[in-house]
């Protein structure tokens, strides 16, 4: 080593990233070029959409798929499969994927808890409780009615969790929200298991709902839920800057001009709309909302103005790839997407946890 080199300052080391866990101090890792990451994610999503339209238990050549989408003739059955089954399924996948990725990222930012996922604020429990009530007590059966029940349940319970978390001095701090969500979820899941044990019909319906899947929807589900997805997404993206400010702590955030209370409420509303709609459309899909923000943060760093949009691309791509994989692996049967994402996502998360400190929230 040439002696003329001045000693490096003790602060963040420039140049190549230091080894994982090299220092307990927050070190500046070299990030991938963020626009490149965005572009790659976009390409991935396009590939995923194409695969979702083209791959399935019925083999249809890509040309025929394109023809079917354009409305040109061809084998009537192929056209039917593409237009009536694969298009709705892909659209549900995109909407649900965006919603899960965004709500996961928002929740982790809001609660500053790396473990936050849609299960945490009671959304899944609320949807499940509403679902068994709809089937067991009200006797509803149509898919669309159940979707609305699930949305309503998710919304009511999220508000309840938020109110509970916000009681008393100090307001809705991250840990309070998590505790409130856990308490209410536990009570609701008890109700759910009571209901499904008392009534076989409800149980039968519930056990299939409990496994999240993109299959078997028609376009009405997407169109009916579209307002939830759109409003939720817009609201979510608009909070990026305020969430960045709050990440520095409440006081610093306030000093930077962020409205702490308003940001929390708006973020919570966005999370509720997005998760509620996603859970209603596809059932509970664990793990996407938890894992995608971690993956994205590892690429872009903690800036929400990058994390949120990139989550919008990576998450649906992941979900659609999972869905396609599920159609292929156990042919002629199918594996539900929630099972695929869990099996694929968990090792990724575990590897991430083992390799380095998680990207700072």
């Amino acid at each position, binding site marked *: 080593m040439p002696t003329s080199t001045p000693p490096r300052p003790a602060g963040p080391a420039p140049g190549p990233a230091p080894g994982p866990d090299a220092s307990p101090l927050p070190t500046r890792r070299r990030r991938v070029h963020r626009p490149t990451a965005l572009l790659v994610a976009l390409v991935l999503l396009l590939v995923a959409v194409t695969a979702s339209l083209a791959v399935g238990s019925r083999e249809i050549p890509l040309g025929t798929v394109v023809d079917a989408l354009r409305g040109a003739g061809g084998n009537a059955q192929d056209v039917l499969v593409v237009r009536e089954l694969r298009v709705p399924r892909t659209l549900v996948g995109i909407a649900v994927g965006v919603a899960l990725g965004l709500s996961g990222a928002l929740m982790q930012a809001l609660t500053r*808890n790396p473990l936050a996922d849609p299960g945490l604020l009671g959304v899944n429990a609320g949807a499940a409780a509403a679902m068994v009530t709809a089937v067991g007590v009200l006797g509803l059966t149509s898919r669309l009615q159940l979707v609305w029940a699930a949305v309503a349940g998710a919304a009511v319970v999220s508000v309840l969790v938020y109110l509970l978390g916000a009681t008393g001095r100090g307001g809705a701090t991250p840990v309070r929200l998590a505790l409130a969500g856990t308490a209410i979820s*536990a009570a609701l899941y008890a109700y759910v298991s009571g209901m499904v044990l008392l009534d*076989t019909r409800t149980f039968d319906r519930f056990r299939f709902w409990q496994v999240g899947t993109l299959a078997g929807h028609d376009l009405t589900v997407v169109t009916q839920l579209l307002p939830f997805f759109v409003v939720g997404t817009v609201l979510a993206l608009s909070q990026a800057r305020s969430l960045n400010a709050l990440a520095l702590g409440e006081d610093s955030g306030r000093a930077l001009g962020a409205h702490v209370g308003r940001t929390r409420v708006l973020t919570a509303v966005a999370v509720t709309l997005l998760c509620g709609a996603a859970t209603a459309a596809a059932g509970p899909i*664990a793990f996407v909302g938890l894992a995608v923000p971690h993956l994205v943060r590892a690429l872009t760093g903690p800036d929400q103005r990058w994390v949120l949009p990139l989550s919008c691309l990576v998450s649906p791509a992941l979900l659609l790839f999972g869905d396609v994989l599920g159609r292929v692996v156990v042919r002629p049967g199918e594996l539900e997407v929630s099972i695929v994402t869990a099996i694929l996502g968990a090792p990724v998360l575990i590897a991430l946890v083992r390799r380095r400190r998680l990207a700072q929230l």
Partner: protein
Amino acid sequence: MSAASFDGAVPRPRVADGARAGRTVRAGRALSVRVEGRTLTVCVVLLLLLAAVVSVSLTTGDYPISVPDVLRTLLGRGERADEFIVLGLRLPRVVTGLLVGAALGVAGAVFQLVTRNPLGSPDVIGFTSGAVTGALVVLLVLQLGGWAVSFGALVGGGVTAALVYLLSSRGGVQGYRLILVGIGASAVLQAGNSYLLTRSRVEDAQSAQLWITGSLNGRGWEQATPLGIGLAVLLPVLLVAGRSLTLLDLGDDAARALGVDVGRTRALVLVLATALTALAAMAAGPIAFVALAAPQVARRLTGAVGAGLVTAGLTGALLLLVSDLAAQRVFAPTQLPVGVVTGAVGGLYLAWLLVSQWRRGRG
């Protein structure tokens, strides 16, 4: 991400509070216990309540038996019918519930201390999901019942917990890493569990659902005895280790400075707590929420310095017995599994507790 970012709700030990410094009771040189007035009171009250619940459980039901008759039966001088009902049905069930509740309460307290997370419970390391997977495989795939199910649960939970430990240890197990790896493992297992439930006949699936909700229905001495022996071995070891646990709560560096082998203590108590959970799950299935709620309730009752393993165990036992009583009586003649009630009661109670704490500006 530091562990401190999500442990805010665990009340810190109030070391500076001179009024409740407690006093040290010594028995010989080896054993000394710091006894604190309020903790002692809470323990006594919990014991009294437990006695009351046990006597209600033994005396009431479809076939009421008076307290003197129960006592006479317990002393071996009762009538034959009473003997069958008290000694054959009610007592083993109550004893099983008592032991399961205590095991879960203590295990939960240990997990919350080690992970430094108020939500820490055996669920977070994937034990419960693994146990359910094991049981479902035995019930739905192998089509066996009885002890095979408990064994399947033990193997499933044990293998999962061991895997999670191994995957999360890198120069010692760290709280947050343990939780994250556990969540990953649970996600996979829960997906598998749902899959198994959808791919079987609805009757089979529903009886499996009954098992995985956790129940004390039909529990007898064959469940209570191994559980009792296991607890008699494990609990004393944990209570001794509990003293270094208190020091862990001050933070790794402080504990190290005070002479605690942090890595080894953590690994030891986690293994012991997992074993407690396994015993409880073998006897009654995975009962929700007791491990999570009991330590929280106990901590808030005592406001104590220290691990509070004893109070957590007593609280867990009380919670489970009261819930079982409700499960048997509220929807009679339908016998709900106790897991339904612990979830409902525990969840609502925790919610109420949190609100009242926060109203008073604490926690």
